[in-house]
């Protein structure tokens, strides 16, 4: 009897270990991290209208800054969290202030842009890394690292800073399912994650 009980106990233990093994091997350990958001100066009221300034491209991916800018703007418009200024208005002021492509505006120029567009907050961004790596299995693994910040257009103070890094592999579930294999798709997912996190954090901060 004792022997039978021990056998059952051992079988249960083995099954338990097997289940854990299956979960980790099939599912992988791809627990994706949330965007790293740091609020430096909490806004007094909730954000209603923003201008997304053209992103700087520090990566080797051609038009990487423009790609992430377009995707982020489209996602921000669709989130209905804030009103977004048309790109053309921003580009027109950039032309008037002689801010060349790839350049970031200085503090005085930021104040002028915010005032001319009638917005209180500006979103600045940099694409630090964007590439499409090939895995050993011949799959494409896109990688994106971005750094974004919200700046108060009146004072020039940085409201929050966000750093986000993701790989297409991070979203793999089983086999190739869930794997993100285009830069556009990864940029869209990352943009949604950043916007959701911003909305949550800023609303929490304003309520306090």
């Amino acid at each position, binding site marked *: 009897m004792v022997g039978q009980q021990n056998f059952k106990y051992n079988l249960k233990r083995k099954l338990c270990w097997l289940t854990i093994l299956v979960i980790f091997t099939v599912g992988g350990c791809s627990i994706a991290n949330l965007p790293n958001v740091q609020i430096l100066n909490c806004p007094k009221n909730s954000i209603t209208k923003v201008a997304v300034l053209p992103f700087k491209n520090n990566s080797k991916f051609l038009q990487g800054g423009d790609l992430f800018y377009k995707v982020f703007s489209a996602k921000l418009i669709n989130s209905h969290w804030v009103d977004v200024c*048309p790109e*053309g208005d921003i580009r027109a002021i950039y032309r008037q202030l002689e801010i060349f492509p790839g350049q970031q505006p200085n503090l005085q120029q930021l104040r002028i842009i915010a005032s001319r*567009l*009638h917005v209180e907050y500006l979103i600045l961004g940099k694409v630090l890394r964007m590439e499409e790596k090939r895995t050993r299995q011949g799959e494409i693994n896109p990688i994106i690292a971005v750094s974004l910040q919200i700046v108060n257009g009146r004072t020039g103070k940085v409201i929050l800073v966000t750093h986000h890094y993701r790989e297409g592999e991070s979203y793999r579930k089983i086999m190739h399912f869930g794997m993100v294999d285009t830069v*556009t798709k990864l940029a869209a997912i990352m943009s949604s994650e950043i916007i959701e996190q911003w909305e949550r954090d800023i609303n929490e901060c304003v309520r306090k």
Partner: protein
Amino acid sequence: MRLLKGINNRFLLVVILFILTLFYPIVGLAQPIDEVAVLPIQDLTHGANGVNFNCTKLLEKDLSIHGIKVISDKKIMSFLVRHRIRWTGFLDTYNIILLGKELSTHYILLGTLCQYDNKIEPRVGLTLTLLNTDTGSSIWGWVGSLSIKDFIHPLGLFEPKTAKDLLPLLINRAIEQFPNKFEFTKSVCPNCIIKNIIIRPKYVKSKQLVTCIVRVNKIYPKVFLNMQLYLNNHYIKLNSVAPNKYKINFLAPSLQGSFPMYLIYKINKKLYKLYVGNLCVDNQAPQIRLISRGIHIWNAVALKKRLVILPRLKNPEPISRWQISVCTLDGEKILSQDGPGPLPSKFFWRGQDASGAMVATGVYKIVLDIWDMAGNKAEASIRVAVIRTPPQIKVSSKIVNNKLFLTVKNETDIPLSFWRLEVFENGNLLKTEIGTKLPVTVNFSIPNKKFAKLYCIVTARDILGNITKRKFSNTFVFNKVNKEKKQKSNNGWTTEF
């Protein structure tokens, strides 16, 4: 009674309609999206200014299939050409509203083809933005992408193989999520009133003339603009000089400092205050000095291979332009270079003139002139000594007690960094001495052979890098040896004594 009732009903209807018209701009109305102007799709794969007309046509075709009327390409292209819009990224609120008015549409669809790649694995990426032409606001955004891995069928049938096959599928997905209606509010758009603001110059001296020009978009003809510039607690009214142009020339404040400027105007009794930049009044020339580390000779910094000159501003400020020149002490300019701001962190001089030839030995003056943004000039100079003469080495000899004493001297003022003396006898090295300071005396025994060929080679380098190498032949040594022998014989001394 019936008539009264009828009047009352009519009256009520009029009142309701009146209230509705009053609240129309605030409440907003749901409007079906049944007509759209599709602007040429941007193509990032062909650079920042790339356009993809194939994608635009596919999008238009799909919208028409889903029952949404599409404005013709010709009308859109005509509008873009007339308003000189080469790229849809430059479509601002004013042009959006204007496009809506000219083409009688409430919606514009903008798109960007982010990816269109057939190289490794065919894939496409697209973003779409729907704009409302009444307010110029963005109302819908969509992002999508597809790769061939998204279409793996069990038997490999009907699988897309290229990006060209993927694009219609992606567009179809986008149109499926296209909004049916949109609630909008009609209001005056403050963004699109001001076309541009020019204030020049922004850095001035006291009481200098400043010009402010404001160009406006006459999109709302009934809007009356009373433009004023607010500066240093003063309101300066702008005059209407042309239909859409306001201008004023005014004198800068006499006080020094940075003054924020605001453009103030009213639209429908609502006051708008725009920050347009700062006016910097500056009457003081920047304070600058030149630093150059090195050896000081003749009250000047000595030039070695090259001279590094570091300009240092006491109170750093933006510089509009600079000019550096090398002059002789008589004031003759031998080299000059200038450039726009900002000021370079370092300057180098290799001792050459404008033609590239090395300058002669002497003292020169390097002068740096800078102008700040307001036009105030500052000057700084530094003296540089150029010494091209190598060390002048002299060797003298003396024989005492059958020993030869060689004295090596440097006849120039420039200290030496290194010297070497090599004494040879019949081509064989007899003695080597190395040092850093001169004069020095070296002694060694005279070789026994009467007619031994003695000579020495002296190499010396001064601290500025000038090198000399001289050979001193044996004649002087033997002359002295012979003379000494003669002197000894004259004295009557004999070797046997």
